[in-house]
């Protein structure tokens, strides 16, 4: 039996991260939740996930720094999906320039997120 694919979720909204954890674990993934960018980087380095979901605005280290760390320091090509609030279009462009693969604007549909995750992890 193949091991469940690991996803690191970096999101400071605990209610949203609980919802997404529930939803994605129902789809057979293993969710590792980080409440801030610093924790996210630690988890990524320890667990080497197959996918990273990250918010942009987070305490300590932002989502952009997480992406930069993964692409430039760890030299990994792990697929990254970025969440952005309305009005953060410039940040989303920066995220893509740093190497993010996809983005979802908030508010987003969890069902749509699952479709995008499945597509990236095919």
């Amino acid at each position, binding site marked *: 039996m193949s091991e469940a694919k690991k996803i690191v979720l970096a999101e400071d*909204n*605990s*209610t*949203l991260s609980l*919802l997404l954890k*529930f939803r994605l674990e129902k789809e057979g993934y293993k969710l590792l939740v980080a409440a801030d960018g610093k924790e996210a980087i630690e988890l990524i380095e320890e667990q080497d996930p197959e996918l990273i979901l990250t918010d942009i605005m987070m305490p300590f280290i932002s989502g952009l720094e997480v992406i930069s760390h993964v692409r430039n320091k760890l030299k990994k090509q792990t697929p990254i999906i970025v969440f952005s609030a*309305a009005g953060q279009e410039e940040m989303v462009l920066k995220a893509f320039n740093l190497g993010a693969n996809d983005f979802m604007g*908030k508010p987003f*549909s*969890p069902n749509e997120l699952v479709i995008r995750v499945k597509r990236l992890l095919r």
Partner: protein
Amino acid sequence: MESYQYLIDYLKNSPPIIQAVWILSCFFFIIIVILIIYLKYLRGHLRNNEKVVAKYQKEYESYLISYLYAGNEEEEISGEQQTIIEKLKISAADIFKRRIIVSTLLRLRNEISGEMAESIQKLYYQSGLIGYALSRLKSKKWYVVAKGIRELTHFHVKEVHDEIVILVNHPKKEIRKEVQLYLVTLFHFEGLKFLDVLQTHLSEWDQIQLLEVLQHFENQELPNINPWLKSTNDSVVTFALKLAKIYNQFEAKDAIMELLTHQQKIIRVDAIHVLSNLQVVEAKDILKNNFDKLSLEEQIAFFKLLENMYETSDEPFLLAHVTYENFEIKLSALKILKIFNIEKFKSLKEISSEPEFIRIFKFIAHNQL
């Protein structure tokens, strides 16, 4: 004992001012000690409070997630969902817990869309939280009413439109602001109908907030703004001018041109700016013919309009004003002349020996404006 006696003798024998200083110092020292003890107590209390809030938040988060995933296709509300609703109803009776439940629901509702967001909305109704928000509307305390309206806005409760719209001219500006945001957030451009009946002042900040909300809607079709341009409430007129500018309401040009004779100078100036933005050529001729009767601010605004809509036929008018006493008008006139008749512009070099004129001329000659 001897040292105390020494201190007492020292104080008794000191001049009155030294005694007063010592007494004040002791008094402030005691106050500081009391405050430090109080701050420690307060900090401990707040930290305990935070722990209690975090504990309840975690509990209500798990209720919420369980509710969202406990539904089935056979029933509208499953047994598990009903259990969660009953638990939340009991908790919601306590104001402290109710605040945490509402904030938990909102934290998720603001981040997700689709059927999950609709389910959260349903839970807000089923758990009876909407009843508490509605009861706040009847409170005698203005801040309770304002908070109630804000909660109903956040949860998109459209059914209470009639109860809220009657507060549009409430004496408290905080309530009026919440009413306006409720109407516009939930009813989009249709919600602006409150401007028909608004008798109180709509501040600049209120206007900015309304425009901020409006710009996010996909359907950017504005209703007819002519009645607002003719309003007796000057702040409504100002806001309507902003709408005309941002949403390019060319069809309202006649109503905007009527504002060129409004009794308020600031509205007349705003109207000129909007007409310039909309490129209304008729306005240019009207203002040019009445130029000398305009106030200085209107004259400056007119020249800004001319910078957008100049024609070669404006040359004599511009030439007549290159040595005008006002700096902005001189600058505008020379700028426009340089654009469409560079030879004429160059010939104006010696027209005046005023240092200000010479400086403006040199600046325009050497810079691309």
